[in-house]
């Protein structure tokens, strides 16, 4: 019998360590939230859980200390997650269970030195997500609750066979949108796992696709930084403007993404919707930044400040994180990162950063450059 509320199980050899975080997640609305020792986990818990969050370090788990046979000894949270996932799969219902890792030692988790982008670490470790204890509790709580809810709210018929893009559009909350045909085509370009990959995952493949391949990149959804760049306004002024109730925010809200994980990493909007909106507002002059801003101001967006860069782009920093400030196109170079989806907007780095960090030169490519 599936539980009616999202359920998260934290697994740690030191239960007290994760209890404060579990309490916060419970306060955020995830009523079924427990912290368990690895020794106490059973299949019933796994089946009931929407999300299992395993601590990376399990050195104080007695089985780890006493066991000599290494095949019976999950070395860390990644290994334990793999074991638990298989138990979950073997005993599960049509409702899937997601697995995530949490650690206070992020550098020891990644098999690639310096690579701490959570979607990359998670993907390489066969996990849905990777949380750092160093991140703000508020962020971790929001993301854990969002992931658990997304898994919990997946339709229950996703194991019955392949789905089509129309069904995926429904899952993503845009089946009835005026621009649904446009959104559908944009989604199709992003290689959604709607055929054989989704069939036996109960929809978890869709969650993974969103987490690893869509949300971290600029594809059919844009985050507030990308939205600001497109509107040619500063991100600070856009965030301030979004707080105010105006015709601008009302019209913009039509294009806000409301599907699974919509609160995982800040607001997102349907990119095609934004383009159509400003195209209509400017009567076909949406490439003209001044014309766009003038029309937005007519909608009460008085706080928006022009960015002062002809074609602002977002860049990656030294640790491959997205930098908060825009750069001019002339000041950046396209870079080619492993596993960067071909359907996503290309990645850029500032020329100055590349000159200061020789090791980043491996990402430079004649093909993209």
């Amino acid at each position: 019998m599936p539980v009616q509320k999202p359920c998260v199980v934290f697994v740690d050899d030191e239960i007290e360590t994760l209890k404060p975080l579990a309490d916060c997640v419970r306060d955020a609305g995830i009523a079924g939230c427990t912290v368990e020792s690895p020794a106490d986990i059973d299949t019933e818990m796994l089946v009931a859980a929407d999300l299992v969050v395993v601590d990376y370090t399990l050195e104080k788990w007695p089985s780890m200390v006493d066991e000599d046979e290494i095949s019976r000894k999950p070395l860390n949270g990644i290994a334990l997650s793999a074991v638990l996932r298989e138990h979950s799969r073997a005993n599960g219902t049509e409702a899937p269970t997601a697995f995530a890792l949490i650690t206070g030692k992020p550098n020891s988790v990644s098999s690639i030195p310096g690579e701490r982008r959570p979607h990359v670490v998670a993907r390489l470790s066969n996990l849905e997500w990777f949380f750092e204890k160093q991140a703000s509790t508020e962020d971790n709580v929001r993301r854990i609750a969002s992931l658990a809810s997304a898994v919990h709210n997946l339709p229950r018929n996703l194991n019955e066979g392949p789905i089509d893009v129309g069904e995926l559009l429904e899952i993503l909350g845009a089946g009835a949108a005026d621009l649904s045909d446009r959104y559908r085509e944009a989604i199709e370009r992003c290689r959604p796992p709607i055929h054989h990959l989704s069939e036996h995952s109960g929809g978890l493949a869709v969650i993974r696709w969103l987490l690893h391949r869509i949300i971290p990149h600029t594809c059919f959804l844009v985050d507030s930084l990308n939205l600001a760049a497109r509107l040619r306004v500063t991100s600070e002024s856009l965030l301030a403007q979004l707080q105010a109730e105006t015709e601008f925010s009302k019209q913009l809200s039509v294009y806000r993404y409301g599907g699974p994980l919509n609160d995982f990493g800040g607001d997102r909007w349907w990119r095609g919707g934004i383009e159509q909106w400003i195209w209509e507002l400017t009567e076909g002059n949406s490439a003209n930044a001044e014309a766009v801003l003038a029309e937005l101001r007519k909608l009460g967006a008085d706080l928006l400040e022009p960015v002062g860069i002809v074609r602002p782009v977002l860049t990656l920093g030294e640790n491959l994180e997205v930098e908060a400030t825009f750069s001019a196109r002339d000041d950046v170079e396209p870079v080619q990162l492993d596993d960067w989806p071909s359907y996503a907007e290309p990645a850029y780095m500032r020329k100055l950063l590349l000159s200061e960090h020789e090791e980043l030169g491996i990402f430079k490519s004649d093909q993209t450059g």
Partner: protein
Amino acid sequence: MADYEGIKFRYADMQRELERMQTLTQEFISEDSRWVFGRCLENLENIRCAKQNRVHQFEINKECPLKTISSEGEYRASQKERGISVFGTLSFRMGLENPHRGKNRQSDFHLVGEATTSIQIFNSETDKLVARWQIEAGDATSPGCHFHSAANQYSEDGIFPEWLKVPRLPSVLLTPMDGLEFLLGELFQTRWREHVSVESEVRNSWAKLQGDRIKRILTWSLSQVSDPETTAWMDLKRAKPPLGLLTE
């Protein structure tokens, strides 16, 4: 000609054409203008989902054109000596109308206004304009020939001034991507031919789109001159293509 309804295009064909050429021309397009393709595709989609009862301008505007890499004399058949380095730019403007009332996303558009693809060549060292021509399709009122090219209009040197408008030289090229391939074929006489000789899905797809269109234009042109009322040329010059030229 009052009964001219334009030329019907499939949105999907125009989109595919732009996407294929975006890939096929990548190494011939200057890195700082490759983004123009993406913007152009976005605008096509905007028009596709836009209102029915108006003419939309689909364009790559001349302020932000597609720009080729430099040709170091590869525009000559003989490359024994290194020529003056030049690069080309391409912009275009087409007047499109959505024909279907009440549809959120259209499958076809009608090319009802003039379609002009402007090509310019600049000296790479001085940025001085050294050549300019247009590939054009007329509208309901243009005197023909309907598919034509024209040289150096908008010049300030007194030769081929804009007011003169002639000559309109007959052409089989129609779309902006036809113009782009023409430009690359001129600037890189050998290299472009070698490039499109490589077997690939993207080359084949583009070749089919372009080939089908040119065949239809030539077939229609042939039908105009086969049994002329006046002279073959005057009949072709006066002829307006049917709406379904490219789709039926």
